[in-house]
């Protein structure tokens, strides 16, 4: 591949452009007269000046230096990097979905309201909840909304003054404690057992009249199902706390069980994980929340409801936590998730989870002889390995991750969950073929052998990417966050 390394600003030349603006058909206006001199921009914003072919080549060159699911296997744990269906992309671009204004008269938005309403209904079924809001834009946003519902609920019961603690297992996603703090709660960490599940005794010790709720993902981030979930739910409910389900790992259980059946009161779902919408290099996602009936008055407003044959917006919920995002959430993402659910149906979603879990167990089985496996029981959609054995030979998990890039794979999630040393967290998903799983396993085995025979090739990796290992220390010490 040729080594294109220019920034847009470096290929810029005065008076080039890649746009074709409409011609003015109205009288010109003097900005200085209209706005007074003070408010007219003195120095133009120095945006790059390039022609359309240059622009397209620039971004094509950049795309060639980027790795997505369409490029190859992307075993990033807890991120559910499944295939992103193309029909979803087409549909989201239909004029009637892409080119509609959110504040248009509601009778001109009935198609999108129907889609949102039906998606809410579908997500109720998949999550086992009684009502769903599509407003949260991503998982962390859903978490925060859910916590604000917990807060509003305790406030209504005049218990908020004492219920200030949110319990979070030490294996939880980092967003859980962060969301709790931003919702105004104190975070209490609950340790895990040796088998990787929540320590029930520790949980019992921590719960009490000051418990606002427990946040849990099940299966947890180790890929292990919290089999004592009903007992945990009882422990928390008994003291008046609520149970929050982090839906990042839903891909393991669709059609098999539901957060509702497990006793959870609130759940968020990551449509950009289990429901196939693309991650876009970091977003946009969509993080709808579902609640049990007794919490429906607290959901964000406006709600999309059906009144006779018409779909309407209703903000008349005085206990609501209020609006948490503009308009109706990430509608374009929700269109994609709806399309996916219609493509798969109920039986399809169950097959998704079955294949995802089979793949994870199979891959774990193939890798266990070569890497430490701290939790060797049945896993769900993902599993963790530890690079401790390799660390003793001077090779760190990060080196193994970099070496994988040389073989045309993205790397697993590394150093998370924090409770596993030198952690590699692998989630193969259901959309990979057995051949891909086998090829990946062979490469992981080969790397384990390299660590023993020729560790330098691993510690110096990657060798074939557009840049070699990057200096993150200088980047953080002397931050350069824009082109000068």
């Amino acid at each position, binding site marked *: 591949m040729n080594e294109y390394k220019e920034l847009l600003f470096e290929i810029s030349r005065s008076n080039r452009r890649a746009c074709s603006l*409409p011609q003015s058909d109205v009288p010109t206006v003097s900005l200085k007269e209209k706005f007074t001199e003070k408010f007219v921009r003195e120095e*133009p914003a120095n945006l790059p000046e*390039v022609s359309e072919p240059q622009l397209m080549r620039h971004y094509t060159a950049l795309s060639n230096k980027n790795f997505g699911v369409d490029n190859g296997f992307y075993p990033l744990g807890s991120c559910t990097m499944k295939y992103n269906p193309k029909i979803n992309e087409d549909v989201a671009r*239909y004029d009637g979905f892409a080119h509609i204004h959110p504040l248009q008269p509601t009778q001109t938005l009935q198609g999108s309201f129907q889609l949102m309403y039906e998606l809410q209904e579908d997500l109720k079924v998949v999550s086992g909840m009684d009502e769903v809001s599509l407003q949260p834009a991503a998982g962390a946003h859903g978490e925060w909304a859910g916590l604000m519902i917990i807060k509003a609920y305790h406030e209504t019961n005049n218990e908020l003054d004492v219920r200030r603690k949110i319990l979070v297992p030490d294996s939880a996603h980092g967003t859980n404690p962060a969301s709790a703090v931003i919702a105004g709660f104190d975070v209490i960490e609950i340790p895990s057992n040796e088998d990787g599940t929540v320590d029930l005794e520790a949980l019992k010790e921590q719960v009490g009249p000051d418990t606002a709720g427990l946040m849990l993902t099940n299966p947890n981030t180790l890929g292990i199902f919290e089999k004592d979930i009903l007992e945990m739910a009882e422990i928390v409910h008994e003291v008046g706390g609520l149970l929050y389900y982090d839906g990042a790992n839903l891909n393991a259980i669709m059609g*098999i069980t539901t957060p509702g059946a497990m006793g959870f009161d609130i759940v968020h779902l990551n449509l950009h994980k289990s429901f196939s919408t693309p991650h876009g*290099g970091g977003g946009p996602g969509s993080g709808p929340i579902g609640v049990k009936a007794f919490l429906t008055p607290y959901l964000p407003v406006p709600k999309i409801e059906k009144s006779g044959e018409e779909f309407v917006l209703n903000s008349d919920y005085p206990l609501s936590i209020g609006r948490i995002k*503009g308009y109706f959430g990430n509608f374009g993402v929700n269109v994609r998730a709806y399309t996916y659910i219609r493509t798969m149906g*109920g039986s399809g979603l169950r097959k998704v989870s079955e294949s995802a879990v089979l793949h994870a167990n199979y891959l774990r089985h193939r890798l266990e002889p070569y890497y430490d496996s701290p939790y060797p029981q049945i896993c769900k959609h993902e599993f963790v390995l530890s690079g401790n054995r390799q660390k003793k030979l001077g090779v760190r998990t990060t080196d193994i991750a970099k070496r994988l890039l040389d073989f045309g794979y993205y*790397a697993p999630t590394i150093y998370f969950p924090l409770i596993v040393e030198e952690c590699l967290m692998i989630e193969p998903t259901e959309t990979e073929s057995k051949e891909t799983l086998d090829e990946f396993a062979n490469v992981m085995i080969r790397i384990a052998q390299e660590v023993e025979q020729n560790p330098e090739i691993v510690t110096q990796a990657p060798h074939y990417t557009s840049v070699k290992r990057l200096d993150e220390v200088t980047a953080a010490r002397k931050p350069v966050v824009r082109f000068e």
Partner: protein
Amino acid sequence: MINEFRYLPDTEQDQAEMMEALEIHSIDELFKDIPEEIRLKEELVLPDAVSESALTKHLRKLAALNVHSHEVAVFLGAGTYDHYIPSVVDHVISRSEFYTAYTPYQPEASQGELQAIFEFQTMITELTGMEAANSSLYDGFTSLGEAANLAVVTTKRPKVVVSKGVHPQGREVLRSVSKGREFQLEEIPLAVDTTDLSQLESAVDEQTAAVIVQYPNFLGSIEDLQKVKEMAVNQKALFIVMANPLALGVLESPGKFGADIVVGDMQPLGLTMSAGGPHCGYFTVNKKHLRKIPGRIVGQTTDKEGKRGFVMTLQTREQHIRREKATSNMSSNQALNALASAVCMAALGKNGIQEMAQLNVEKADYLANQLRSKGFKIVNQAPFFNEFAVELKHSVKEVSAVLLEKGIIGGYDLEPEYGMKNTMLLCATDQRTKEEMDTLVSVLEEIAYE
């Protein structure tokens, strides 16, 4: 049997081989750790799976129930706008190397995305006149919430003062956010069309963490940022501006007026309206606050051979490291939309963005003048960008219904939020032609004299 699902590659043979390796006889055995009493006994009750062609037919029908901007003339703005989007934008974001990637955790395999975001950060700081930007947040309103949280945490003060010139939904989101970290929110009314500066001055005190105004404000008018800044400085409160990035093509940058944080939504630059999302919040600050920014930041560095490269940097601010001590809980952002906006800004370039902004000014100016000449009262006293409020003779609801029959989406009804009876917020973007505007004026005139 599995093969009827085109995203699932497993054949029965594949599954049999995997099960054999695992020494199990059915996939069900992999779920035996899930207690029986919570296992579903029946299939999920969802509509049956449908074929690709049947599904596109169904979805086209649903889409057709909506009225879209290619079949009507949209005079509705109020935070979301019908603007020119260069064709290149969708071509770039349709490259699956970009849209099917995750957050660039492995920078060596994600240089394209990282560089594109670095360029985005540069361009948005150019427009806002600030020194640093993050890689995006959910939307303009949630960015505003994050800015308020930053101010409250940094200044350790309990009150945020916000002008009613800020978008009503932005203030609603702020109100929800304020209940999290539990800070007070004080709203300052408008004096006609801009923030009542004397009320603002008396509200800002030593308890004030931040003062927030919108630029141009919700009614389209230009707020006097210089005066607001002085009031903030006098009490050592942070000055937060929510700005329309397109307007900054011609308006003096908030950075020049001394803003501490400038946030907003990139939607006017390259993003489809999509019923309000996904859009893209931006968040820019001066270096002083760099290490308090929510969300991901891309920084420049070199690889071990000295070659320029890009990484996510200052990550200790973030939730995956700092957990409960993180500056924000942001994880997923709107990176693909930031990319779309970057492409749009690059396509417009230094001249194009000024011309496009100017076009908006001229269209709105023309429309306002036409309405004035027909006897309508334009509410705005301050200069406005591409939106203004006009008093009608009938309720906005009635007028909108008539306009819709004529193929026009009318403006925003200012009565519920601002108590401005029969007053419509009209927007004329670069996409509105003189002919469409003349039609609008004549229909409004007809209705007025009915």
